[in-house]
């Protein structure tokens, strides 16, 4: 017989601690314990058998690893919490006695380490502990950035102090500046929740979500104490990440922050980025600030001194120009474009035909630093300035002007500036008759331009143009995005298309299968206009597409459908007679052609066309045969499977077929649409 063991002395009972036990062991209050756990990354755990772990009669709900709690005992922050507890006691005693000034003094002094002799506690050591390497920190940056960007956009309340908001905002701006300088931003997406951004830093894809401005309602059931604790930790983390990123590309951290500019809502413009060593790289700060001339004006540099310095620097540079070429920092490449290396990334091609479409490296064909670099933008006052400014700058634009209403820091506030090449507008085209005589004095816009008037030589686009251009890595045609035009749908750049899936952005022949293409061509030749098998189904769907083309108005689809029905009635008589099977149909057609030729007494015209058709038909036959064989093989293989597995397989096949049928339908619809377009353009 083995040794008799007492209950609750070994195994799970020892490995886990209830929350109450943990709090008692650490001798701190429950809120402090929560904070400590969040900072140190200690999460609630789940024992396999709760009853074996807790000894109490009532069911405990939260458990922690005993080892974790044991480790927490060595945490220097714990000391801080205990000191806080002592301070609380002191204050409450003083208050009880009525010594208010004493109480206030205790409280005041506690924040000053020189008075108490106790060190100031920071979370710096925790950062290194939780993220042993920089890459670890980058991987966890999604949550951090989303949180900080969210808090930067909150209104200040008692739960969220203004100081915290300001700090969040500053850190976020600094991070944005890094992305601007390094051109690390890859994609962005306008969703109904907020704006998604994806950046690539040191090969890590970072995705975060930024809320729209002035939209955050504070709802009741959120624990701001916990959120605040997370934010405190993330602020420290982002500070260090920013430091590392800035110093990594030779910039000084923290960047110069101009409070007066920030008060005037300059946002990104309130920061002046500087290189670490100004003498070796004098051009760096210039390139980043808004407009090339802005910083020199602001600082008021003496031109003589500047000229002298420039001369010396030029000499220095000539000496070690080859050396400078090697350490091509991002700031330098932006300025001198001569030493640009063609660092295009290899594409992954599927080995076998019909293989999966492999995810391509995310950086597009064009350099993100170049996309908007030659343009000058002007933002109308109804457009969202913050995201536009960030994205445009991150993709190389250096001159962005905007209306005075949108804040300080623009390249120009004058809408009539001749250097502007693109203007972003988001207001409807007003068809009002404007008298040329009365230039409305009361209206703000009328002092510059009357409604509907445009400056010549300038491209007017809606904001979505910027996003779609950025996501595709190329400038989209601005006609599609002209003011008042119904915009093409804004697709998510984060969705990966699968093999055979319909992708509206790709041309048709890039995505259709072999059989589909053959079918289409045969149908084309054989029947003249429409030879799709599922004709009536398509008609049903047609009305929906009609709706999507205009304005996504589902409700108003009814009026379209009436027209469609009329079309159906007209075209239906012809369609019904045609056999659905393409082969028979073409045979019948051939015979008819022959008959016609006989009657008219001419030789059969389309001899060579027929030959082509024949080859196509035979190819299709071949394909069908192959598909049949494959299906048979599959059936045989399925016979080997167990019943359950077979069921699962069939289920999978069913859903796949359903999806592919949908894709087929969409493609055929598009084919038809394109054909119509072609016919129209010909006519």
């Amino acid at each position, binding site marked *: 017989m083995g040794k008799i063991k007492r209950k609750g002395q070994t195994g799970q009972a020892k490995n886990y601690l209830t929350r109450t036990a943990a709090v008692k062991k650490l001798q701190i209050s429950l809120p402090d314990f929560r904070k400590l756990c969040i900072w140190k990354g200690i999460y609630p755990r789940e024992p396999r058998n709760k009853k074996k772990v807790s000894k109490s009669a009532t069911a405990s709900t939260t458990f922690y690893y005993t080892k974790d709690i044991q480790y927490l005992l060595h945490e220097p922050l714990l000391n801080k919490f205990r000191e806080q507890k002592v301070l609380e006691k002191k204050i409450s005693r003083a208050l009880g006695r009525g010594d*208010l000034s004493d109480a206030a003094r205790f409280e005041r002094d506690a924040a000053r380490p020189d008075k108490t002799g106790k060190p100031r506690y*920071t979370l710096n050591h925790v950062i290194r502990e939780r993220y042993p390497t920089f890459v670890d920190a980058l991987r966890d940056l999604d949550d951090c950035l989303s949180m900080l960007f969210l808090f930067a956009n909150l209104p200040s309340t008692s739960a969220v102090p203004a100081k915290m908001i300001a700090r969040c905002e500053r850190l976020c701006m600094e991070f944005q500046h890094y992305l601007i300088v390094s051109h690390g931003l890859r994609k962005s997406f306008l969703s109904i929740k907020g704006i998604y951004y994806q950046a690539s830093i040191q090969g890590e894809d970072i995705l975060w979500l930024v809320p729209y401005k002035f939209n955050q309602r504070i709802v009741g059931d959120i624990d701001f104490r916990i959120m605040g604790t997370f934010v405190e930790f993330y602020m420290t983390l982002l500070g260090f990440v920013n430091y*590392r990123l800035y110093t990594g590309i030779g910039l000084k951290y923290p960047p110069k922050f101009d409070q007066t500019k920030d008060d005037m809502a300059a946002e990104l413009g309130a920061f002046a980025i500087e290189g670490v060593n100004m003498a070796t790289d004098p051009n760096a700060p210039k390139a980043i600030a808004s407009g090339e001339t802005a910083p020199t004006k602001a600082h008021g540099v003496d031109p003589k001194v500047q000229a002298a310095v420039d001369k010396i620097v030029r000499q220095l540079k000539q000496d070690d120009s080859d050396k400078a070429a090697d350490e091509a920092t991002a700031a330098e490449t932006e300025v001198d474009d001569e030493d640009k290396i063609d660092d295009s990334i290899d594409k992954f091609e599927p080995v076998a035909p019909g293989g999966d479409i492999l995810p391509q490296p995310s950086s597009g064909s064009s350099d993100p630093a170049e996309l908007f670099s030659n343009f000058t933008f002007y933002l109308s006052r109804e457009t969202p300035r913050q995201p536009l400014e960030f994205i445009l700058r991150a993709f190389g634009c250096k001159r962005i002007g905007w209306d005075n209403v949108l804040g300080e820091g623009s390249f120009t506030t004058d809408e009539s500036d001749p250097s502007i090449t693109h203007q972003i507008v988001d207001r*409807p085209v007003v068809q009002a008759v404007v008298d040329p005589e009365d230039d409305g004095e009361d209206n703000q816009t009328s002092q510059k331009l009357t409604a509907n008037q445009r400056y010549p030589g300038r491209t007017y686009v809606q904001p979505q143009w910027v996003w779609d251009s950025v996501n595709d890595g190329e400038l989209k045609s601005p006609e599609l995005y002209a003011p008042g035009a119904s915009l093409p749908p804004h697709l998510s750049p984060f969705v990966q298309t699968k093999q055979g899936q319909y992708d509206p952005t790709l041309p048709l022949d890039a995505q259709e299968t072999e059989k589909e293409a053959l079918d289409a061509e045969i149908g084309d030749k054989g029947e003249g206009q429409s030879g799709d098998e599922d004709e009536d189904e398509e008609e049903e769907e047609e009305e929906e597409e009609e709706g*999507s083309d205009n304005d996504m108005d589902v409700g108003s689809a009814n009026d379209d459908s009436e027209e469609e029905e009329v079309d159906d009635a007209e075209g239906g008589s012809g369609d019904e007679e045609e056999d659905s099977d393409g082969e028979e149909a073409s045979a019948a057609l051939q015979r008819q052609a022959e008959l016609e030729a006989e009657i008219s007494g001419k030789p059969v015209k389309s001899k060579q066309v027929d030959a082509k058709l024949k080859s196509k038909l035979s190819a299709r036959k071949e394909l069908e045969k192959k598909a049949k064989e494959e299906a048979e093989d599959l059936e045989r293989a399925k016979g080997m499977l167990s019943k359950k597995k077979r069921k699962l397989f069939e289920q999978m096949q069913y859903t796949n077929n359903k999806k592919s049928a949908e894709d087929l339908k969409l493609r055929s619809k598009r084919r038809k649409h394109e054909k119509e377009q072609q016919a129209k353009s010909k006519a």
Partner: protein
Amino acid sequence: MPVQRSRVGNPDAPAQYNQPGRKGKKAWRKNVDVSQVVEGLDELNKQIIKGGVIAEKKSSELFTLDVVGDSALPKKFSKHVKKGLKCDEIIAQRSAVPVVPMRKRAGDKTTDGVLPVKRQRTQYITHKELTRLKKVADGHHDSTVAVVDATYDVWAEPMPTEEEVEKFNFLPEAKPLKAPDTLRQQPISLAANGKAIPAVPKPKGGHSYNPDFTDYQDRLIEESEKAVEAERKRLEAIEEERIREEARAKSAAEADAAEARAEMSEWEDDSAWEGLESGGEELTTKAKRAQRKTQAQRNKIKRRKEEERKAKHEAAMKKKAAQVEQIKQLAAEVEEKERQRALEKTEMSDGSEDDGNDFEIRRRQLGKYKLPEKDLELVLPDELQDSLRLLKPEGSLLKDRYRNMLIQGKIESRRHIPFHKEAKTTITEKWSYKDFSMD
């Protein structure tokens, strides 16, 4: 309760005069009880001797005003009168030496004739500050750590290694603190498949402000199906509750009826007693007389019994065999089920379309409270605009982030408790008012 009795008069209960009748010897004069009358006369005599009949005297001759007080009273109510308060008792024990005053006071009011300098209240604490201090004393400090600008690279320096120049070799070396392996474990995600949930799920096309029609339609249909399902469930729950309520009411009514019947039955039983029962005579049957069994009969019975026993045994054996067979089958089934589950899991794990947007939440929750529901992030068809300016953002990011933390298992879900539970108080009367006696 103490017995209340008057201090004068006969203490016995009032009774009838105890002369039952005037007939017989007891009615003779010498046997008539006149003791009461004699006593009364004696009393009168005594009063006359003492100075007059009391009933004929004036009240002023009988009573005087007592100004001294009853000396016996403290003895009677010793508990209440003598003791005094406990706090007085404690205070009385204190030393006669006066206390050193802790409170800071202004100096006494006597002056030397020179006008005092106006006291400056440099240490004045505003009311707002005071309330804040009180909060701090209650443990509501806003932050215990300082968030300062990063001035160095945390990741640049090597991990701190203690290289002390001077070492005492006689002291045992302190082991470096090592973080436990459990600290590296990922938090428990609340997804049903147990996979880690991304902090920011990748948005799909349906979430776009200007979505593709098919994407939007798919999402709209999906969401509306969900909503319909939720509504159906709600209605079902209501219906179920209603049915249960009805059944409860019905059973209660039945119970009442049964009770009523039980009460009534005493009366209804009378009918039997009155001889209304029918067919009483026919029920009596003639019992067959037992006869001795022959040997053949005995043998027959024996055989039958033996056969029955055998059949029973065989049935039992058959059942047992079937059960054994069933066990095998069950085991196979369980195995198959497990394999199936494993297969599904692997299939789920290599499904690349999982981007953290929608996943099943596991049933076993972390913590006491339920996970808050996700907001419906959907722009309805009639509100859908293709202009960024006209977009009405949906959903609350604040809630979203909070929920994401819960789902990731970083914190357990909590519930906001606006008011603390207060101690229950019950009001009772003291019982001491009943402690009195009348003598």
